[in-house]
């Protein structure tokens, strides 16, 4: 009876549209609503003691131009770009070769990638402290094998934060690349080889352009979060690495300056969107075909 009902509603597109309308309304309400609230908030003023005063100002945005915040933005951007670049370099080959595994090993690799998600990423980052801290796991191993003489003291350094970023975000890149490589038609590679392309040429001219959408969504899935994952910098960077996400969190939770936090968040959002827009422009152009 249920399925009959479904079929009928599918036939009458008007009725089916009405049926899914609540979902769109809920999504709009919970996504667009807070966004609008945040924009409004960013133009308001912080109250003397607690909360927000309903007075229009652009002071929050002007304050972002202060060197201390500008530098934080630049540092966040650098870290996000570096992390994303490294994730692409590791994740693309990983996803590519995973897609070429036999079905049995493919599901095993997939399983291995899912296991970490069973634990909170916060917990897993604390695990990295054990690895990175002075005389921790990493130092012990390196010194045992005589690769270093003294502890490297990597905890609370830039490399530690980058490692944490890669660790948390790499699976998303792998999945995205895997999905696009897996559904690629391998007879196209054979056609390229047949027409005279070496394995490398065939990859660059056929496989890479066709899996670019996967790489693109992988970049989106890693770059956006890497701009805001403040707890990684918190846990593995101590107070030495301050990212824009940390500033937003501080302004919101400690300084209770909600309007300024909102302004920072909006600028971050615009900056990220702009960069992704530019990235999309570049990858959609014919620049890749110049490689052939």
């Amino acid at each position, binding site marked *: 009876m249920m399925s009959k009902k479904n079929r009928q509603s599918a036939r009458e597109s008007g009725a089916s549209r009405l049926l899914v309308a609540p979902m769109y309304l809920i999504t709009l309400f919970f996504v667009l609503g807070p966004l609008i609230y945040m924009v409004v908030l960013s133009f308001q003023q912080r109250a003397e003691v607690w909360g927000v005063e309903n007075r229009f100002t652009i002071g929050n945005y002007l304050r972002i131009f202060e060197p201390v915040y500008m530098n934080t933005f630049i540092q966040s951007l650098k870290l996000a770009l570096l992390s994303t670049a490294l994730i692409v370099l590791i994740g693309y080959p990983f996803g590519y070769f995973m897609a070429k595994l036999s079905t049995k090993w493919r599901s095993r690799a997939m399983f291995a990638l899912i296991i970490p998600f069973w634990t909170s990423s916060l917990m897993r980052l604390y695990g990295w402290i054990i690895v990175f801290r002075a005389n921790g796991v990493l130092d012990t191993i390196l010194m045992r094998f005589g690769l270093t003489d003294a502890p490297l003291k990597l905890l609370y350094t830039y490399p530690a934060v980058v490692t944490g970023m890669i660790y948390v975000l790499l699976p998303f890149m792998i999945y995205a690349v895997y999905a696009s490589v897996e559904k690629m*038609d391998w*007879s*196209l590679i*054979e*056609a*390229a*080889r*047949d*027409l*005279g*392309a*070496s394995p490398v*040429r065939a990859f660059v*001219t*056929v496989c890479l*352009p*066709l899996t670019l959408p996967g790489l693109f969504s992988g970049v989106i899935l890693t770059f956006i979060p890497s701009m805001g994952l403040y707890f990684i910098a918190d846990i593995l960077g101590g107070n030495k690495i301050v990212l824009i996400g940390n500033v937003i969190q501080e302004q919101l939770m400690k300084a209770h300056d909600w309007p300024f936090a909102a302004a920072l968040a909006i600028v971050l959002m615009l900056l990220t969107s702009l960069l992704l827009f530019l990235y999309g422009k570049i990858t959609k152009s014919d620049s890749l*075909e110049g490689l*052939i």
Partner: protein
Amino acid sequence: MPDSINVLELDGIEKGFDGSEVLKHIDLEVRKGEFVTLLGASGCGKTTTLRIIAGLQRPDAGRVLLGGREVTDLPPDRRDVNTVFQNYALFPHMDVVKNIGYSLRLKRFSKEEIGQSVNDALHMVQMEGYEKRLPGELSGGQRQRIAIARAIVNRPQVLLLDEPLGALDLQLRRQMQTELKGLQQKLGISFVYITHDQEEALNMSDRIAVMRDGRFEQIGTPAEIYDHPKTSYVARFVGEANILQTSGGSVAVRSEHIELLRESAEAALPAAVKSKTFTAGLLKITVILKDGTEAVASRHGIDSELEPGEAVWIKWNPDHAVPVEEGGSHDE
């Protein structure tokens, strides 16, 4: 290259997958400008043979020679052979011109040379005006033509075609058969063509190699294959001949040569009408002989007065009976 040298030679090719033999000692010689068809049911090993010629698969044993030179161990990009793939395998992110010019760009020809060759190829397959289209914007028949243009643009010694017309409708298939044959004669390139369609093979080929279970059952001109099938398999597969037992052994008799009589006559065999079907302009009457074998007689016209269950006698002119080996020759 002197004409006496075969453009392509397969010498004792063997190939197995996971313990099962797919190709059992394949020998084939293709002369310059020859149109050779590998004809067989699906799973007989014809695609594997083609892939070994192209270099996409390596044989377990045997040699592949192109223009007298051994290429068995060369990768596909270093063989002067191109393939028209069954699914066309056009690059979806390149337009028609880029697809056709792909091999020329790899060889670093000048822009002018590439443009000229691509135009020639487009003209040859009558696809001018589609230069900027993406494969996704073309119909099956048009994609087919582009795939052919892409494969012939750098004039390989041998063109391999893997059931290129399989996905097209009957009318288009007939038209493409004529065009492909014309193209092949114009280019003077040797074609190795795969099909399971006996009509296609008989129409286009200079020679046909009938394949069965990883072996060539018979290699010969269409006339030889059709009129003098060596084995009962070939007789059945090409032209759907009846295999009948006589005192002198098995003979193949084509359905159009089977006479149906209402009364006994000399050398006639008793039978019963089983069914009647009308296909491709012919009425096919299936009868069952006393020993259980079925035979098909074909007639022009849409119906006959014979009804299923009726007793008849079948007779054929001995001139049209070709002696064949029963069961093939796999157990030597």
